[in-house]
């Protein structure tokens, strides 16, 4: 079991959130070398495109909160199964209740079925949000940082992590938690196209002086991290930060995306980015808190409220303990993302 060679890979994988941003990338990696990839997708339209990826993809349509659906997802899988639990709500349509229903309730449902069939491992996709923001731009979260959940999403992912850890500690199912920050990469949702468009047109707000740092993770890097978490014996019961090699300043992210857009042949405005005082982001955070205290959610206000913060992590432990080694740089990853958008007809 200590080998990390593909020949020892667990032959059957279950992927929740398979039609999401991360899931699409993960499934495309798993289809090579695994006998079966059983995918949970939330609606019937999402099934056929995934099944076209490879003949060993199987889809189950339904809700991760629904016991009967999750029973079907875990039915008839054979003796050796890994689970990648990537289903979650990050931007609910209206109510913060969805965070808890899906991120907590869904995780409990998946852990329970994983225990019942005796899977070899559950790799749980978590987030930076259970940790809030770094106190200074130079601070980095590591695996010993204290929990400090940021609003409804952060609280729900914190509770989910707690369930996952409990399931491991009481011997129900072996687990590993992978904490991923802001993604970029192919199969991005529409909101990320808006991000590129805003930068191209000079409308993306640079909050304060732009020195706040952000860890980001290219989806291929993250997929590699998830596979390391699945394969490493040392990972069992632990949680790891998985991100690009280093955090970036927000100014650096904007500059890099501008270069990538230009080099993909897109005209980028010569205007300098929209500078917005930090107070605007602080105001947005207060409004977001007020809305969320009433159970309501507004995506743009939430995102604006977080823009002032440094949210940066140190991937040292994932490198040392599970062999994670991010290979894609910000520039290359952004170019690939932009190319994917253009190839798929997105107007940036």
């Amino acid at each position, binding site marked *: 079991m200590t080998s990390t060679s593909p020949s020892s890979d667990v032959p059957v994988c279950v992927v929740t959130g398979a039609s999401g941003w991360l899931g699409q990338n993960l499934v495309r990696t798993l289809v090579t070398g695994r006998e079966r990839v059983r995918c949970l997708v939330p609606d019937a339209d999402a099934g056929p495109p995934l099944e076209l990826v490879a003949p060993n993809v199987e889809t189950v349509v339904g*809700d991760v909160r629904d*016991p009967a659906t999750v029973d079907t997802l875990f039915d008839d899988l054979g003796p050796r199964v890994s689970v990648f639990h990537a289903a979650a709500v990050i931007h609910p349509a209206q109510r913060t209740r969805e965070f808890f229903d899906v991120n907590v*309730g869904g995780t409990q449902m998946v852990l329970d079925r994983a*225990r*019942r069939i005796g899977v070899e491992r559950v790799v749980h996709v978590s987030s930076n949000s259970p940790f809030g923001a770094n106190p200074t731009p130079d601070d980095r979260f590591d695996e010993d940082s204290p929990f400090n959940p940021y609003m*409804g999403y952060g609280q*729900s992912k914190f509770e989910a992590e707690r369930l996952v850890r409990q399931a491991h500690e009481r011997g129900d199912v072996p687990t590993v938690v992978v904490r991923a920050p802001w993604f970029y990469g192919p199969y991005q949702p529409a909101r990320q196209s808006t991000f590129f468009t805003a930068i191209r047109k000079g409308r993306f707000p640079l909050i304060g002086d732009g020195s706040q740092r952000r860890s980001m993770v290219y989806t291929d890097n993250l997929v590699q991290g998830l596979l390391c978490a699945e394969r490493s014996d040392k990972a069992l019961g632990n949680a790891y930060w998985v991100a690009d090699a280093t955090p970036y300043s927000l100014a650096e992210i904007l500059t890099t995306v501008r270069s990538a857009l230009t080099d993909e042949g897109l005209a980028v405005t010569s205007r300098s980015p929209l500078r917005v005082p930090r107070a605007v982001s602080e105001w947005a955070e207060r409004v977001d808190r007020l809305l969320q205290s009433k*159970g309501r959610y507004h995506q743009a206000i939430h995102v604006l409220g977080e823009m002032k913060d440094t949210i940066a992590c140190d991937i040292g432990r994932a490198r040392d303990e599970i062999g994670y080694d991010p290979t894609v740089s910000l520039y290359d990853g952004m170019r690939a993302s932009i190319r994917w958008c253009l190839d798929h007809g997105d107007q940036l």
Partner: protein
Amino acid sequence: MARITTEVLVIGSGAGGAVTAARLAEAGRQVLVVEEGPWFDADEHEPFSLPEMVAKYRNGGAQVALGNPAVAFGEGRCVGGSTEVNSGLFHRLPDYLAEEWQHTYDIDDFSAQTLAFYAGQVEAELQVSTLPTAPPPSSAILEHGATKLGWRNVEFARVYRYDQAGRGVKQTMSRTLLPKALAAGAELIADCRVVKLLRPRADRGRVVGARCVRTHPDGGRETLDIQADQVVVCAGAIQTPALLQRSGIRHNIGRGLKLHPTVKIAARFPHPVDHGDVPMHRVTEFAPNLTIGGSASRKGQIAMALAEATHDIAEPLADWENISIYYAAIRSEGSGRVRAVPGLTSPLITYKLTEADMSRLAQGLVHLGEVLFAAGATELYPSLVGGPVARQLGDIGAWWDRSTRANTNLMTVHMTSTVRMGNDRSRTGTDSYGRVWDVANLHVNDGSLLPDAPGVNPQAAIMTIATRNTEHLLSNL
């Protein structure tokens, strides 16, 4: 107006008051207990029946914490308080909560070891025990369903004494500690409501007694002033803060009400289920945030439970002998307030549930549905307005979205935390032993002192803490 004088006045005769009275009386103190509700003969009502609940709960059990959704609650109002009418489950306060509370509220001498010492005394005195025989079908259903799903479950100990045939009698306060207190010289006046505590104008830092209204068997009322050196308020987490507020004591009093919001399912089986007892098994797989158990399920309660899910109760009710009621209770992030309103007998009670609470309740309903189907149920009637009634596992996923604030019917019988104990005056109403801040001889000794909801039936925690506090009071008298 009549006047009585005593050394210690204990207000309320439930889990907190009975412990206080018995300990003090046995230590030779002069004790008078006043109880607002009546003194029923222990065998007068059929256990867990609707008539018993109507008689022994305040307002016949129809009380509500206002909010969206509202939470219906039951609060004992009789000699023995809620111990007369509850299921008698006795579960020690989890060690980790004792440590958390000790730390958060800066409570002296509140270690897990200290509490275990007093819990052991209470358990021995009340004969806390598990069943000597196989569990009744209604309880075995939970054990069977949970075991089938691989979910942790346990038979909770109860305050029951069993005879040789295995017949159990619940060791309520009116059967145990109150007779002990009386045997040791304490006096008890039932049907006697305390209107307010008496504090001299010149010295607001003391109480001198309480003004009561006593109702006589013929319906006549008289005002009764009781003078006391020490007053211990044990009227429960709703009435205790209301009384303190009516008496002008308000610092951290009545805020932070905690309860265990509870959803229910009436489950129909293809075979008869017993109805004489309440299930003693609990599903602890999702504890402490979520606990699954069984409720009193006489015909009356079944009719009420069915009516929550469907208008068409005639057909299932005809089959009531095959139906039993189960619940899922959560630890809630939300909190509430108790406010005495001048001129009104009842305080105004409000409770706010968070979105996370609502989600946890929906989760509870779904897991409860799973375990009941696993146990062989054929039809499930959830406490959701308009259901839907579930006939197979595939039907219960719909409950997630149906569990809205408008549709969810909630109840509870566990109310705590409206006073709170500990050295941190910014968040407590009393010191570490229940003495009310700035009033030298006034104490609280009931569920109001628990800093948070315990996640389990609170009777054990209330009695354990009350024992500890009474020992401390005795050492200072």
